[in-house]
């Protein structure tokens, strides 16, 4: 289990150093919310802000979501757990940010919890990783020897369903959607503004929260995230009506990994799989 206090102290220490150096005007980290259990994403901009930084097992937020908010900052330091670091890798691949403009404060984390359910989320939504894949400074001991679970293990039950059951399941889930769009807003990869679903020309789907529009929104979004979703699970945690979107994203990620041999956000030099091709891709993938 991660020593959260130690990470917090190291985070403060590094943040202080960086902000004092004036080289880095923003450190993206966490602060206390209205109580301990509800921390908030936080942009520390001065040495005085450093004291407000916290880190605990509820700091799930994928901070990569925020890096595009500071167009004027020459450099941004960012606290990054495994999933955050993968998100950063994708954003670097997609040229939304340059690696040299980031100071990645890596956080090895295990024991993260969903504040709504108090359940451990480690193996469910972080792609089975505990350590960041890319960082400049690691704020704690690298985690080794944890039981590694395949990130796709949770899919087994759903894959085993027959198609009617699976349809019934997803229809039921997606019909609940109230189109608050928290999933896309919480997603570090969903940076489109406007989102396709907000377009009037073309109008892809109804604005009203009913089955056809919900289907179009979510199925298309699954497609847009194919080969890009880094399995942070923020979409599901943000959802006020509890749709397990991460399952679907995971499934698409699994298929992409099997078809194209590449998991999202693992290597800086990779290209997202759907804007890439190999001549030798097999036609079997279409069967």
């Amino acid at each position: 289990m991660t020593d959260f206090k130690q990470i917090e102290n190291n985070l403060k220490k590094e943040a202080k150093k960086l902000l004092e150096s004036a080289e880095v005007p923003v450190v993206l980290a966490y602060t206390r919310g209205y109580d301990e259990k509800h921390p908030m994403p936080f942009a520390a901009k001065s040495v005085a802000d450093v004291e407000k930084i916290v880190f605990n097992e509820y700091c799930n937020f994928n901070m990569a979501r925020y890096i595009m908010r500071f167009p004027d900052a020459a450099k941004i330091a960012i606290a990054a757990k495994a999933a955050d670091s993968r998100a950063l890798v994708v954003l670097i691949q997609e040229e939304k940010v340059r690696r040299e403009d980031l100071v990645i404060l890596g956080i090895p984390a295990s024991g993260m919890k969903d504040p709504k359910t108090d359940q451990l989320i480690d193996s469910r939504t972080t792609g089975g990783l505990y350590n960041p894949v890319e960082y400049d400074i690691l704020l704690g001991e690298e985690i080794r020897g944890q039981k590694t679970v395949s990130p796709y293990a949770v899919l087994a039950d759903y894959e085993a369903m027959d198609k009617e059951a699976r349809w019934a399941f997803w229809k039921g889930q997606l019909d609940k959607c109230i189109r608050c769009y928290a999933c896309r807003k919480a997603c570090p990869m969903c940076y489109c503004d406007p989102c396709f679903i907000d377009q009037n020309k073309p109008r892809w789907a109804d604005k009203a929260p009913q089955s056809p529009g919900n289907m179009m929104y979510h199925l298309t979004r699954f497609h847009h995230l194919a080969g890009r979703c880094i399995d942070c699970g923020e979409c599901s945690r943000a959802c006020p009506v509890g749709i397990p979107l991460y399952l679907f994203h995971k499934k698409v990620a699994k298929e992409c990994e099997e078809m194209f041999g590449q998991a999202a956000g693992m290597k800086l030099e990779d290209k997202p799989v759907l804007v890439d091709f190999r001549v030798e891709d097999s036609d079997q993938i279409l069967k």
Partner: protein
Amino acid sequence: MLKKISIKKINDLAAALMEKGTLLAPVKEAAGHNFAEIKDPQQLDLDYYNTIVSPKTVFLPQKEDFVRYETAKPVAEAQPVALNIKATFLFGVRPCDAKSFQIMDIHFHASGIIDPYWQQRRDATVIFGSAFDLDIPAQDADFYQTLGIGAADPEGSDVFMVKKGEDLLMKAITPQGEEILARLAMLGEGKPADKKYFEEYIKKGSQHQTRNMCLDPQVIAKKLEDIFHSGEFWQAQSAACLSCGICTFVCPTCYCFDICDDTLFSRGVRRRVWDACMFTDFTLEASGHNPRTHVYQRLRQKVCHKYSFHVRKYGVISCVGCGRCTRYCPVNIDIYSIIQDAMKA
């Protein structure tokens, strides 16, 4: 009029109400409770804290069809969608939500042009308010006390309900409440002890602790006007905000909507659908100009609308402290803290 019923027999009450009209009550779903039509009396469930989405859905459904048409046919042939108003019983509304209806009434039918949908549904609905369980502490996110609402506040309800041991006490607050209680034969008469219990419960409810601060509507309204142009304040408050629509969609007093046309195979419908001032395209004009491109401008609009503009326009704060926006915010933004900070700013 004070009536009572054994909680064990609550399903009989449900059945009776279903006979007389549509019964809406909190129904358990995977992620929590939500108001929905009760189809089976056994569904009625008193074991909830509050619903995810507020019961405003009953009067202002997320989607409201206005008119259906065929695009190739003349405008005159379009068919307004009938409302099919039926007697409705909205059962188990928490005091803060009951209060929210009164606030929304000001906007929808006490000022300017009357919204016929809101009005007709409101007129046809009897509100069965239900006190919070005072033995359970209020959730951290709640702050209805700040808005002057008690945990067992009957205001806004037609009938108000309080649990007493194995019994549910039901008191008529309005003439509509009187009328419906009189028509429910399975209800027993409340004893003087029940009456005393009920009254004390309400009193005790006003002392029930939620987060609380002293808030004068005029003062906070003025304060927010003063700091309206303080970019620093609003940028700090909105640093984490994702600009999603959760807070407004779950809110009992948010009413913004969009009007849109959906068509398929040259048939169409014009409808209104909830919209949210937190969405980036909310104020996007046809010209492409958008006066609120930044997150902070949108969060500021939301907070100021509730605590300043609404006070200026309608005299009351448009918030009931139900805590939903805070509870469901994916990044734990808390409007109570923002107001606290604003007062200090």
